[in-house]
């Protein structure tokens, strides 16, 4: 029976290697338009995963993350335009700026549930207005142009892939660690967690900074990718909504759900863009309603159900048979 498991493990490894190879070779295989789409998907994946740390892990649903995306994007744009620092440095600076800006919302962390959400909407919209007005920073409603051709689209593809992978890895690490357990505890019951010595405010603050930083870095990459950014797009309510939709549809609070949600989101949005520009909103609205009512873990939840069914129907009997064989073999 052990041979069976070893073969399966080897097959898994082969698939793993093949997938990595495919990802690395993508720029050579795909045509430019599709490659751009994939890169955009990576950026959104990172953003959604970052949002999920606040919305899913900590449990504070924010409808104002566009402010962090925008700050990261515009700070990175300024760094790129006015200095010759390498782009990754600019993106990191953008991320740090966004994280620090996020810390400004610390007082709202002690609000519970929907009140935090309302406050986040208020902060997000206030940020949008102030930054759009501050036209040195954002160029007013006209936006900012970045110096062109710093990186090719191929290079940006790999940077995007790296960012998405890093964000996902951080997500896994958080969940797997003591930090993850503590977050679960405060999400379940803040007061009880406090009774056993888990300090919610400091944890939440850390996650807020981290979430803001990752979303800010993805904003910076976004700026480099498009070569032109404008505040209504970067800071807009629709942008905040996009993060929420990606994470919830993929699976709020799950480790990889938001990444899946981001992929679906970008795919659907781009394919509808030319023919039915605003249809995707209604689609997501209906999806959101269905998810809240029937499957709170979104697509990840559906995947889990499917996995459980497969497990029950095919894998469990095999395991039972193997156990029975072993017991019969050695009494």
């Amino acid at each position, binding site marked *: 029976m052990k041979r069976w498991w070893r073969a399966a493990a080897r097959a898994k490894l082969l698939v793993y290697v093949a997938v990595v190879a495919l990802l690395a070779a993508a720029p050579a295989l795909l045509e430019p338009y599709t490659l751009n789409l994939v890169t955009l998907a990576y950026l959104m994946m990172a953003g959604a995963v970052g949002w999920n740390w606040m*919305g899913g892990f900590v*449990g504070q*649903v924010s409808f104002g993350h566009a402010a962090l995306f925008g700050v990261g994007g515009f700070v990175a744009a300024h760094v790129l335009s006015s200095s010759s620092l390498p782009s990754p440095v600019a993106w990191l600076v953008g991320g740090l700026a966004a994280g620090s800006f996020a810390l400004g919302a610390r*007082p*709202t962390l002690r*609000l*519970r*549930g*929907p*009140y935090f*959400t*309302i*406050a986040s*909407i*208020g*902060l997000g*919209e*206030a940020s949008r*207005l*102030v930054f759009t*007005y501050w036209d040195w920073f954002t160029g007013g409603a006209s936006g900012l142009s970045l110096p062109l051709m710093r990186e090719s689209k191929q290079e940006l593809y790999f940077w995007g892939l790296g960012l998405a992978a890093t964000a996902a890895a951080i997500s896994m690490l958080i969940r797997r660690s003591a930090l993850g357990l503590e977050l679960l505890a405060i999400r379940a019951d803040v007061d009880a967690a406090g009774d056993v010595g888990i300090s919610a405010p400091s944890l939440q603050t850390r996650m807020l900074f981290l979430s803001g930083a990752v979303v800010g870095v993805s904003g910076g990459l976004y700026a480099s990718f498009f070569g032109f950014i404008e505040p209504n797009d970067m800071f807009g*309510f629709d942008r905040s*909504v996009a993060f*929420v939709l990606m994470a*919830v549809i993929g699976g*709020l609070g799950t480790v990889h759900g938001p990444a899946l949600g981001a992929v679906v989101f970008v795919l659907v949005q781009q394919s509808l863009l030319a023919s039915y520009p*605003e*249809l995707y*909103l*209604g*689609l*997501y*609205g*209906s*999806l*959101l*309603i269905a998810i*809240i*009512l029937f499957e*709170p873990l979104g697509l990840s939840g559906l995947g889990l159900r499917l996995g459980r069914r497969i497990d029950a129907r095919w894998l469990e009997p095999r395991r039972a048979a193997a156990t029975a064989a072993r017991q019969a073999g050695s009494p």
Partner: protein
Amino acid sequence: MAQVFDLVLSAVLLAGLYAMMAYGLGLIYGVLRVVNLAHGGVIMCGAYLGWVLHERLGLDPYLALPLVMAVTFGFGVFLYRVLVCHLPRGAAGGPASLLLLFGVWLVLRNAAYLLFTANDQVIRTSYSTHSLPFFGTFLSVNRLAVLGLALVIPLALQLFLSRTYLGKAIRAVAQNADSCTLVGVDVERVYAITFGLGTALAGAAGLLSATLFSFNPAFGAGELLKSFVVVVLGGLGSVLGTSVAALILALVEVFAILVLPSYLTSAVGFVMLVLVLVLRPGGLFGRPVLG
């Protein structure tokens, strides 16, 4: 001095509009403890309903008001019975109610886009740009009408809540839903009717906004936020609290033009929202908004 008088008048007119928008949100939150994120969407629906009635049937918006309110009331009841009743109440529900109603808002927005396209619309009547002279300044006819309704409707609401059986039932359920079941009040029915009332008020606010501003399917987000500010500021004590809070918000916004660029006056409201939420959760009147 004349300038101050002018500003105060503008603020009073603006307060009327803000109060109209906030009543519906406050009612639903006060009784059901649900934050109705679809409020903006229903406002938008009210605007489009009024516009359609005006364009197709030539119906004057103020005459169409009862009709629009009836339709949005029915929609609210429908929404409650089909979707909202499945949700847990209050803060314990987590983001579920928020996200559900937000989903409803997205669907509404899309439906409006499909039916009417994304172009800006406005209700233009023969008296749209008329204004009445008043002690040296001019007051827009439409804004006066909004103010008038903003005074009449809460009065009617207050009477309803204090004099009728249904109104008292609503207030009882808001205080303690379980006890109400014990004394034989059909709580679910009360919830449904309250939700409908809330959306009816939102629809009315939408119709009135349509006579003042142009709108498109994305309309309602700003109005939602302003309504939040008013509800949070006024606490949940009473209809009176909401009205006074609306006046305060309007005064702050209008007088802010003296110190801020006019561009940023809307941001003032949002900053106030956050400050009040964080510093004075009880609002300025009435029961606390939190917990």
